[in-house]
């Protein structure tokens, strides 16, 4: 059996980081850059002094490391350090991609995975904000719900899989639900904690002017925690991709996680690498989009 672990010694940081991500999943995977190993430097920080040119320079600098990795990969395979089963050349991976495109398969794998992630992320985030607001603002809700939610959070994500499959069968529902679970907790935690530290004076002033309940929440409390909401959302998105792969690795007939297992079973390391690269790119791209939204929102609500 080909193994999914690190096959060689040299310059291939993509493998170990990702497998680490898998095994650590469900315990503490709350690292913001998780979906895109190796491309961390390209993450534009929320430093609002950056102009366009500055942004492009940063992007360029961030591409240096991926380019070096690609180069090392190319050189080591060209030198014949690895057998193609251990580590195929970049070109082979690229051709695996074009082949899958020509067979009309790649797009559907990517589309279904992205759809699952987005659905799960949106539902999990909405739930996280609502329950986070409830628990963060109401002492009673905190006392009643806090311990239960804390205990549920302690359950490693993979432990849900058999139960979800039993209850919902191996369909879309079970996969999306797993992703909902993954996306929910980071948002819930950050929102409920942040709401406890909203400026008491502002809340009091708003209450003195007759705001209460939902109106108070949307006028004062939620805007005050926008930065926290977005850091929760970014963690949640990372978790969503992580849980997607968990769901698809175990039971699916389509998607990038399926491509991973399927390639493993058929000894197609080129496709396996392709799936990993796609996961990195998709994770990074969706995170960057969310980062743009975050920048806009933080500027709007601060």
């Amino acid at each position, binding site marked *: 059996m080909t193994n999914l672990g690190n096959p060689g010694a040299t310059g291939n940081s993509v493998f170990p980081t990702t497998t680490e991500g898998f095994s650590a999943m469900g315990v503490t995977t709350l690292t913001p850059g998780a979906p895109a190993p190796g491309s961390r430097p390209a993450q534009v920080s929320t430093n609002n002094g950056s102009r366009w040119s500055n942004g492009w320079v940063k992007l360029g600098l961030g591409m240096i490391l991926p380019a070096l990795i690609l180069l090392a990969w190319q050189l080591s395979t060209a030198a014949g350090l690895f057998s193609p089963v251990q580590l195929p050349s970049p070109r082979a991976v690229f051709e695996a991609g074009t082949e899958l495109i020509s067979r009309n398969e790649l797009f559907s794998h990517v589309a279904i995975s992205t759809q699952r992630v987005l659905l799960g992320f949106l539902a999990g985030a909405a739930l996280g904000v609502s329950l986070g607001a409830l628990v963060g603002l109401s002492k009673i809700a905190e006392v009643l719900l806090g311990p239960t939610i804390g205990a549920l959070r302690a359950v490693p994500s993979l432990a849900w899989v058999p139960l979800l499959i039993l209850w919902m069968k191996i369909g879309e529902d079970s996969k999306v639900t797993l992703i909902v679970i993954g996306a929910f907790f980071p948002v819930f935690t950050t929102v409920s904690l942040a709401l406890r530290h909203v400026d008491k*004076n*502002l809340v009091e002033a*708003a*209450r*003195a*002017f007759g705001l209460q309940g939902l109106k108070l929440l949307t*006028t004062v409390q939620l805007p005050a925690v*926008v930065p926290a909401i977005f850091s929760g959302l970014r963690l949640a998105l990372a978790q969503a991709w992580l849980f997607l792969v968990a769901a698809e690795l175990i039971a699916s007939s389509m998607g990038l996680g399926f491509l991973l297992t399927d390639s493993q079973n058929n000894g197609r390391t080129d496709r396996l690498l392709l799936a990993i690269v796609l996961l990195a790119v998709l994770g990074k791209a969706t995170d960057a989009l969310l980062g743009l939204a975050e920048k806009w929102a933080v500027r709007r609500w601060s």
Partner: protein
Amino acid sequence: MSALLSRTVSTDSAAPPTAVSDPQGTAAMPVSFEALGRSFSSKAGTHTVLRDVSFDIQAGEIVALLGPSGCGKSTLLRAVAGLDAPSTGTVSIDGTAVSGIDSRCAVAFQEPRLLPWKSIASNVAVGVPSGADAARRRHVVKNLLELVGLSKFAGHRPREISGGMAQRASLARALARNPAVLLLDEPFGALDALTRITMQDLLLDVHAAEPTTVLLVTHDVDEALQLADRIILLGSDGTDTPGCTIVRTVNVPGPRPRDRASSELAGLRSSLLASLGVDGH
């Protein structure tokens, strides 16, 4: 404020304020304090801030609260607004005891407390009672901003304006409520001397047009003499009992606006300063 005045901070007109009368305008209401006391308990023990505060404010009267820092002036205002519950005694507005946040009051807090992510105009709009429609809301906000001299800054965020401007915005927000009882906690504290006088005149104009009941906390004896019908001095009464109470009540003579240089006021001024423990010479 429904009575919208044509004058602004920058135009100094002697003409009487032109009020746009509002059929829904809230009538001023009397406020009465009965043996009000407030203590805070902590691990270290009980800290009595106020005790035995009893006095009545007539509808439409302007009362100034003077007293040393920490004597409980803000605490007293918060009790009227229903933001804080007294430990003993009651506050009543128009005969009904205050319990919970009272919609008949509007507060301009000691700090401006504006929402940082909203424009000045939107912050002032927070004060407009929720029943008002959008057009009326805009109208009220526009006029109030003009009144406090912030029209040019309507679209600015609170952090883009000065502390004194923020305080004026906070005053405008309270006026937007057109309250029966207006509670002002050092509303002009952060203003320069000239703007302060202009804003004091403005408050008097607003009050003349729409005579609401005003309870005003201030550190400035001259301000109290200029604005108030009555001055209430809070402080320790010299006994061993902890907590501050009313140590002196002064009826300020003469109709407003008062001559800032009048000798009668000067005498009252040094006597008040003496009561506050400041040498008045």
